[in-house]
């Protein structure tokens, strides 16, 4: 069975500093990996995905994530945080080798960017 772990419930960072939100995954086959963001009282917005190819993927709003197969990680990063980045971030995984399996989400990490 596939699973996702987001070890931090909360990440605090000063505006202008780099940010990292951690994610590790477990699948039996090859993973499809995703990051979503949820602003207060809103649905989820897709940020970026890793399917295959370059391990560093770039997404919306200046975010990027690095796929590390040996560490089974897919950490979300941004070089310079903005106060407007404050939101709830979800990592998700799907097992490529298991057909149309559902997307499994981590428990979420709340990012707080302080001015």
């Amino acid at each position: 069975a596939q699973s996702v772990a987001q070890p931090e419930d909360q990440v605090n960072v000063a505006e202008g500093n780099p940010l990292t939100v951690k994610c590790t995954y477990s699948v039996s086959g090859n993973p499809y990996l995703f990051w979503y963001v949820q602003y207060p009282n809103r649905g989820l917005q897709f940020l970026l995905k890793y399917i295959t190819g370059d391990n560093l993927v770039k997404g919306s709003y200046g975010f990027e994530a690095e796929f590390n197969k040996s560490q089974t990680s897919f950490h979300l990063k941004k070089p310079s945080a903005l106060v407007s980045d404050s939101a709830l971030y979800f990592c998700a995984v799907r097992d490529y080798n298991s057909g149309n399996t559902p997307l499994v989400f981590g428990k979420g990490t709340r990012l707080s960017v302080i001015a």
Partner: protein
Amino acid sequence: SAVISQKPSRDICQRGTSLTIQCQVDSQVTMMFWYRQQPGQSLTLIATANQGSEATYESGFVIDKFPISRPNLTFSTLTVSNMSPEDSSIYLCSVDQGGVGELFFGEGSRLTVL
């Protein structure tokens, strides 16, 4: 990307009643998913709804409690039946357009059961 509209956006319901949530997509999609997000929690898949077939429910969710309709390729409904305070959650409709698992979500329906 697909534009997904959900109704109602929020509601306050009485214990024992039922509420139907509607999900409308601006394009035809094969697979639609219903998720639940309980307060302070992650998203849990309730069921997968494909047009022309019965919905497939995840462990812990049953059709009597969460009946789903999928009459065509752009519309689905989720009913939360005989509600209790434990059903207070955000219910999210999502669709798979890309074929590689990238889901698009509606804004969610926030239900509060008193």
